[in-house]
């Protein structure tokens, strides 16, 4: 599995509330570290809730993140969504195309599976 998707970072209620609660607290960290994938894409690619994937951007920048199923119909196939934060910033390149604004939405990325959720749950279980 190594398909091209369009990544749309954006605001969410949990991310917004998390800013006020504190950026090192769980609510903010959970909000910005969950990549939403369309349920139909997850089914087609054999992905499950909590699987760890690697995103690679147009300039080769990469990030690893756990996925979660988007709510029904919120995302069309081929789109990924993540709340603004460290992960989405890592996927932004420095070029602003003369505007001052880096391309922060609509980024072309490839997504590949790194580890199944069941596998890293087992590893964590073993470690503990």
């Amino acid at each position, binding site marked *: 599995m190594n398909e091209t998707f*369009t990544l*749309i970072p*954006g*605001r*969410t*209620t949990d991310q*917004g*509330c998390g800013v*006020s*609660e*504190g*950026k*090192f607290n769980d609510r903010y960290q959970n909000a910005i570290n969950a990549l939403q994938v369309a349920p139909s894409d997850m089914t087609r690619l054999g992905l499950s809730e909590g699987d760890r994937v690697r995103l690679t951007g147009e300039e080769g*920048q990469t990030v690893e993140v756990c996925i979660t199923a988007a709510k029904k*119909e*919120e*995302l*069309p196939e081929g*789109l990924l*969504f993540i709340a*603004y*934060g*460290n992960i989405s*910033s*890592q996927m*932004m*390149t*420095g*070029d*602003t*195309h*003369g*505007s*001052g*604004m*880096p*391309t*922060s*939405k*609509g980024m072309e990325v490839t997504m590949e599976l790194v580890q199944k959720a069941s596998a890293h749950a087992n590893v964590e279980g073993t470690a503990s």
Partner: protein
Amino acid sequence: MTSASTQVNAPTPSVPGELKVIQDATCTFCGCVCDDIELTVKDNHITEAKRACVLGKAWFLNHSVEDRPSCLIEGKPATLSEGYDRAAQILTSGKYPIIYGLSDSPCEAQRVAVSIADWISGTIDTTTSVCHGPSGMAFQGVGEVTCSLGEVANRGDMIIFWGSNPAESHPRHFTKYSLMPKGMFLPNGRKDRTCVIVDVRRTKSAKAADIFIQIKPKRDFEALWTLRALAKGIELDPELVHRETGVEFSVWTDLMERMKACKFGVIFFGMGLTMTRGKHANSEALLALTRDMNAFTRFVAKPNRGHGNVTGADNVVSWRTGYPFGVNHSRGYPRFNPGEYTTSDTLANGEADCAMMIACDPMANFSQPAREHLSTIPLIALDTKETPTTRAATVAFTVATYGINTGGTVYRMDDVPIPLRPAFPSPHPSDYDVLTAIEERVKRILGVTG
């Protein structure tokens, strides 16, 4: 219980155990700047925020007095005076100093920040440059047909949201300004309005729409020019329009008929336009469409602004320098050039050699190349809470929270200035206090008198 005056400028300390109520407090979390909040304060902590939305409640209830030093130098507690000295020394030593942020500071503090940038021949930029900066460029290109949110509430019978998700970014937008209010010319409120939402995904806001139009990602420009062509009566190839926008041609013709037939149309647009490929060209297309529609009926456009006083930052920087953001003073007079003097660029290009970040968090929100460079240069940070940027700072000031601990003026997203009514005092200085003290020291180092 004591009842506080609604004209509070400086908050009075709470009497231990007693409740204090602040009427008509102003929420500064988002650009709606709701000024009808009733706060209950006990022991210097807000216990209730009536009428606030979910984001506003989180804002008010989580900003109590931070148990941190007011100043840290290289991670170690220091006196404020030591912090001011070090900050002034950093800013006056740089060859390319930058000052950035300001969207969560009152106008009074923003004004001082611009002065410092002028004294040090530095660059002043605000979070507008990574928000609606491209729209600011578009305003200069095609103009802005605009109005206040009060006019929207009283007159707007066709409300279009394009690339904006107010249900999550501005939760009271619908109820206070754009959809639900019963207005002077809209006695039945929501029933008298048509709501259209255009987006690449079915956001939580889509539930509020009478018509939801889901376009292809990165095709806002094509969709807006389709509408411009339809407004002018230009013949288009339906199949081509469908292929380019991802939407049936008949949907666009139906929308244009409705837009022409309404009495007062409003397009609220968000960062779905400005952050996507095309950027200022997307905003220009939307503003030009709005202008075109005034040949048929009244139509206005408003950017949905994010932070509480980002609109104030645009106003203050404009009336101090002539330009809204990304302003460079290195030649002794202000120059404006997005893409060159904007902070994403000065950092990612490795040009800035010192920085002061005010009420913003570039170490969390900027591109990786920009963050990597920022981590290598002397950095001053002012924030109410600990953030990745304050952690990386050479000098970090913990400041009081505007609107909760300090007064001042903020601008709502429609450029209406609104006073703040703080709830309780903070032991930390305000950002105005910190910036004023730094400015005094900068002037002293530079030998400026008066």
